[in-house]
């Protein structure tokens, strides 16, 4: 399991760069590319075949809808997934992002040397931090000396990605499309949904960077909600009553990040997942939908009832306040992230997840799927031999849970970097924390195997139970999961206008919920945005979707 992939910062990294507000949830899919004529050429590409890795069997099986595989114990026998050393001894540089403390630098990091030797290259890495990647990336591009491997996140507002790809990066379509991907068995373990996020202009540009496929949820502190019979509801009235019940004596039911509150609760009203499609094929934007407006209205009522913590919508320590029992529930990037965060802040605390309920009894509630990736890692243009070597390296990095390669990448060398705990799970030593953790965070961002649930990801002694709980929650959420209709499709107007649209919309949500503006200003706001760029986004997405036959 990617122990580094679920923190709040990670989630924020993905959302703030565009929306510039902590916890703002307003961003949507795949906006980075601005291909002049990209939309037309879009997704008519043959995706790589899906060949699941069969040498390690999880205790709880994954499925194609995005359910995570679950392990309850650590595999006794690790298998080898990469037969030969991938590299040819040359220098290879990678640009990626880390979500934890940086590792010791290359010169004084013995694990780094070992990674280099296992990969058969002289590996150097530019490790961006969060926030800051959206500034580091263009700076490196502008410098002209591109690294061999570049991680490209879809939603940090990077501009002109399509031109960059066409000009400087290798089109790997012929090396991985269809059965060709079988040359790289660990990459073949990625699903079509993963690959879709690496398609621009109808070509595949890199190895996907997998991430949990579940979306934002409310995670609650069970101690707070015990008073109200647990953190669940079957109607808005019940949710409201429970929130009121737990609020009082300097405890508040919900964190004051209003944008996220509306986002998660709009699922109860059946809002589209960011971009939806109407029956006639037209593209719709979720914030314009009646469902979103109803959710906003409900959040205004919650605010009037005084159940939000009286802080500002940018508060950074809501998760800590939740662990202290001052806040009842916060929005997390996904269910596994919620459980991991509460266990990290207090090993005895197991976040409960609110399953979206049917808000008015007529409409189907929905859970908003995430993409299942946080982008992809592209390869610099070069000879076929060079590009194929890079694919071998990415194949090594994508080694699945239960392989020797994965254990080495995530934990290092037994004895020096990690030891096995009493349940048989690797735990990093002090040296491992200094040398392995940071580098793994960066390499795992570039690419890794599809996300799995493993007990070691949850601090404390209830790991196996956490895996079962989160797996169960994922099953429930997937029953009503809806996908973002535009994954793998691109709109120039999106890149140009979305940053502004997102900030203005988030400001308006905050103003309305806080009572500074009236809810009647919501509809006119969107009417005004139509000709300012939103209509164009919708048309471009629709054209692209129509062209690909979706």
């Amino acid at each position, binding site marked *: 399991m990617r122990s580094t992939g679920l923190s709040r910062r990670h989630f924020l990294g993905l959302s703030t760069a565009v929306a*510039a507000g902590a916890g703002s949830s307003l961003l949507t899919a795949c906006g980075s590319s601005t291909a002049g004529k990209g939309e037309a050429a879009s997704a008519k590409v043959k995706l790589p075949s899906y060949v699941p890795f069969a040498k390690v069997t999880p205790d709880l099986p994954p499925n194609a809808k995005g359910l995570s595989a679950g392990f309850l114990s650590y595999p006794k026998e690790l298998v080898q997934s990469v037969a030969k050393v991938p590299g040819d001894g040359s220098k290879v540089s990678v640009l990626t992002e880390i979500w934890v403390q940086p590792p010791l630098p290359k010169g004084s990091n013995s694990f780094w040397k070992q990674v280099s030797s296992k990969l058969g290259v002289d590996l150097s890495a530019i490790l961006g931090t969060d926030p800051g990647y959206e500034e580091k990336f263009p700076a490196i591009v*502008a410098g002209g000396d591109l690294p061999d491997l570049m991680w490209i996140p879809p939603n940090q507002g990077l*501009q002109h990605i399509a031109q960059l790809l066409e000009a400087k990066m290798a089109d790997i379509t012929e090396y991985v499309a269809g059965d060709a991907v079988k040359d790289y068995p660990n990459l073949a373990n990625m699903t079509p949904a993963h690959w879709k996020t690496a398609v621009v202009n109808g070509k595949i540009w890199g190895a996907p960077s997998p991430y949990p496929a579940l979306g934002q949820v409310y995670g609650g502190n069970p101690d707070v909600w015990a008073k109200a019979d647990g953190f669940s509801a079957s109607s808005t009235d019940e949710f409201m009553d429970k929130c009121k019940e737990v609020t009082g004596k*300097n405890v508040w039911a919900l964190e004051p990040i209003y944008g996220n509150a509306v986002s998660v609760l709009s699922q109860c009203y059946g809002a589209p997942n960011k971009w939806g499609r109407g029956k006639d094929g037209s593209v719709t934007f979720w914030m314009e939908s009646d469902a979103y407006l109803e959710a906003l209205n409900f959040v205004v009522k919650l605010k009037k009832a005084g159940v939000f913590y*009286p802080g500002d919508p*940018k508060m950074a320590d809501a998760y800590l306040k939740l662990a202290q029992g001052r806040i009842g529930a916060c929005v997390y990037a996904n269910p596994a992230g919620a459980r991991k965060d509460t266990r990290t802040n207090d090993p005895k605390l197991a976040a409960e997840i609110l399953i979206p309920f049917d808000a008015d009894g007529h409409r189907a509630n929905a859970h908003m799927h995430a993409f299942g990736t946080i982008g992809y890692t592209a390869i610099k243009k070069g000879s076929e031999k060079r590009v194929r070597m890079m694919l071998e390296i990415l194949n090594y990095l994508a080694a699945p849970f239960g392989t020797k390669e994965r254990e080495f990448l995530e934990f290092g060398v037994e004895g020096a970097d990690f030891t096995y705990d009493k349940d048989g799970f690797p735990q990093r030593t002090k040296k491992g924390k200094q040398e392995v953790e940071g580098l793994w965070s960066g390499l795992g961002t570039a690419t890794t195997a599809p996300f799995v649930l493993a007990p070691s990801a949850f601090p404390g002694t209830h790991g196996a139970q956490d895996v079962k709980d989160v797996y169960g929650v994922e099953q429930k959420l997937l029953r009503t999961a809806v996908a973002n209709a535009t994954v793998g499709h691109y709109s120039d107007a999106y*890149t140009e206008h979305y*940053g502004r649209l997102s900030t203005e919309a988030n*400001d308006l949500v905050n*103003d309305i919920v806080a009572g500074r503006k009236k809810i009647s200003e919501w509809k006119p706001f969107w009417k005004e945005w139509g000709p300012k760029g939103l209509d164009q986004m919708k048309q471009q997405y629709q054209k692209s979707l129509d062209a690909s036959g979706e």
Partner: protein
Amino acid sequence: MLALMAPGLLFFVVFFYVPMLGNIVAFEDYQPFIGFKDSALVGLANFQELFVDPAFWESVRNTLSFAALQLIFFFPAPLALALLLNSLVSSRVKKFVQSVVYLPHFISWVLVVALFQQVLGGAGLISNFLRDHGLSALDVMTDPSTFPLLITSQVIWKDVGWGMIIYLAALANVDQSLYESAAVDGAGRWRRMWHVTLPAVRGVTIMLLVLRLGDVLSVGFEQFLLQRDAVGARAAEVLDTYVYYHGVVYGDWGVGAAAGLVKGIVGALMIWGANKIAHAFGEQGVYSK
């Protein structure tokens, strides 16, 4: 002698004058990936877009009102504090107070805002106390109508001690015999302040005022960015945050740069004008003719 100036000159050329060429962005549809050279020139289109944007004028209005409040309340505060401290006899107390009041200058805005939040916020010390006693909680951290006062008091709390130092230095230079002879001539406390102390700091005060006027459109950045969502953009957007949101967040680098340029030009005009006025009053100002 000129050679000795070279490092300083170089510093200004490299870090101030060369970057000024970057203002070309204000006349381009600039994209960082394409660069200065290849971005399309769009003439004054960025300025047109800027001047029809109501959010821009809102940010100008906010900036001016914060600046006016700061000028009225914050600008004289360090002088008042300096006079107060200067009148203390015990130098130990003086030193101690001086250290205490200028320390907040070194605290970052993040911490200052957090501190205010902890004390005055909706879940802060005072609100919790009020709530425990059945009273209604404070709302000063999230009330847009009192936001300008909150901002000004934060600035005073943070920087009054720092601003005081320069006045204390000026006061230390006053010839003590002037006070003695004034006292001998029968001048009381107030007359001594009026005729000896204040004239002694007049030059410094006017210079600081001119500089402040030149900087009048810079009322702060982090302070507003941090508290923007709590009170809403309408109350907290200032020119600098406008530039940040348009340039960096929205990717409208051209419009952001145009707003920055407008700000710079207004600042330069203010310096020039204020200096003229200073000369008219027979003061030296920031530079002389």
